């Protein structure tokens, strides 16, 4: 029972990690919480569905299409909506992401209809190890998310553009003195961050029903995770996502539906005692 709960918690946690790392990456550079990130995830799942089930191409092509399509959507969003807002008041910035959120959800509803759709099972079968059951599809999901996260860490730690990104997120002014262009960095980061939402849609699409409204809950969870881990910290998002997933799994098993509230309580308490989150840089309260 305990090991099964732990395993379920890790699977949910990995989903939170994928969602939250993209959101936190974007926040670290653009200082925007993209409320449309959940809809990016939803669209990623639909791209996956269209390529896999309607076009009949295999899992790898469907997954890569999700990542690329949503990455491009992110690039377009940065260029078209976020860049003109640079330096504007919070009401315009949050308003824009909320407007985009509604727009994309409405567009998906118009195109695909409001009903649930089933993505066909790519990897059937169930593994039984030491009394715990693990569907193969979930194992694939664990593997894919781990690979995506590994690629993200490799990019941010080992490549030149990744290093530049870290520099901007640590100190924008000092980075500009080193000749790093913030606009270019924002553009790239919005693409990569959104591609992560697409990857989440592509990995999780096979596990759940998909519908135009599926983005709402994962967005809220991702916001809880990045607040927990520290906004802007990818390591914080990774650890925070796993912690939230596991804690929720145990709470569901032993407490029932009230477990939903735990995430909210965690961040309310955390923001009181440690507002920068577990791994965030201490920040000035005034923007």
């Amino acid at each position: 029972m305990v090991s099964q709960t732990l395993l379920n918690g890790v699977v949910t946690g990995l989903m939170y990690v994928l969602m939250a790392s993209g959101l936190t990456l974007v926040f670290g550079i653009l200082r925007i919480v993209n409320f449309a990130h959940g809809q990016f995830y939803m669209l990623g799942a639909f791209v996956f569905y269209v390529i896999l089930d309607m076009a009949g191409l295999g899992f790898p092509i469907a997954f890569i299409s999700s990542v690329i399509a949503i990455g491009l959507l992110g690039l377009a969003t940065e260029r078209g909506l976020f860049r003109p807002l640079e330096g504007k008041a919070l009401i315009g910035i949050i308003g824009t992401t909320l407007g985009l959120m509604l727009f994309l959800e409405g567009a998906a509803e118009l195109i695909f209809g409001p009903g649930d759709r089933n993505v066909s099972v790519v990897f059937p079968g169930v593994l039984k190890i030491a009394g715990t059951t693990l569907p193969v599809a979930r194992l694939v999901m664990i593997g894919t998310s781990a690979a995506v996260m590994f690629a993200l860490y490799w990019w941010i730690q080992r490549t030149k553009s990744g290093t530049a990104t870290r520099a901007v997120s640590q100190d924008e002014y000092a980075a500009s003195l080193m000749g790093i262009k913030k606009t270019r960095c924002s553009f790239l980061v919005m693409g990569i961050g959104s591609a992560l939402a697409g990857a989440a849609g592509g990995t999780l699409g096979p596990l759940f029903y998909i519908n135009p409204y599926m983005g709402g809950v994962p967005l809220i969870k991702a916001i809880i995770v990045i607040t927990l881990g520290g906004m802007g910290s990818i390591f914080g998002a990774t650890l925070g996502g796993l912690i939230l997933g596991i804690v929720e799994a145990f709470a569901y098993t032993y407490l029932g539906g009230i477990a939903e509230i735990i995430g909210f309580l965690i961040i309310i308490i955390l923001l009181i005692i440690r507002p920068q989150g577990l791994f965030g840089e201490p920040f000035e309260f005034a923007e």
Partner: protein
Amino acid sequence: MKKQAAIIGFAVLLLLMPFLVRDDYYMHLIILSGIYSVLCMGWVLILRAGQFSLGQAAFLAIGAYTSAILTLRFSLSPWWGLLAAGISAAIVAFLLGWIVLRIRGLYFAVITLAFNGAVQLIPANIDYLGGWLGLSPIPSFTLFGMEFTDKTLWYYLVLALVGLSALVSWRIEHTKIGRYFKATGNESLAESIGINTVGYRMLAFVVACLFAGLAGGIMAPYLTYVSPGDFSVSKSIQVQIQSTVGGTGGLAAGPITGATLLIILGELLRAYAKGLEPLLYGLLLLIVIFLLPDGLISLPGKFRKKQ
């Protein structure tokens, strides 16, 4: 002189509304617009004091549930429910504000969003509070032996609340407090001239939530039920959208315009263009932010300038 005449004419129009609109369905929309107007005025008041709330539906919920529990579980009159609704929302706002109002910007938006999520889930998971199904039937108001059965009395009750809320906003805007609210936007500057920024932010937050609670205390008996689904984060987002579209330059006219227009637009879309509403809502918000940052309320002024 001309302005005064216009205001008096508008007031007469508002008072005669139930006799001009002799349709229950339209009256229902107008009453809903009134409830949302109160929420939006509160939201803009908080914004004026430098905070961005994404949790106003939580305070509507606190008011509505307070009224529902007092009337259903303790058999009190909904008038007591209404009073308690406002007070309870204000107390919760005070306690929450005491903890979170020093947090600014995006972080405040996130914490109010989380608060909204938590508040919605509490009654959903407690049987005494009705669970996901909610509580009903909440008894209606009675005044001098008249029960609020048709929409006319409800309309006047909501109109009174909108009027009170607008009056408070108007008073705040045109006195020293309003200027202090504006000043809290630049925290260090405001504090350097002796303005207690957190104190004024608290005042704005508590007043806004008091009115949100009162709106809940009217909404619960009006709809005769409360259920957690009605107080989701998306309702708080709707408040933000209505206020932004209406215009946040003034404390009363913009939010009331935004709430009323978007409630009616939402209904028209539902009737004539089903499925298009979220898309057009989002598009409208984007258009207003990019092309008309002062909201629809600034539109007449722009035309006048051109002439």
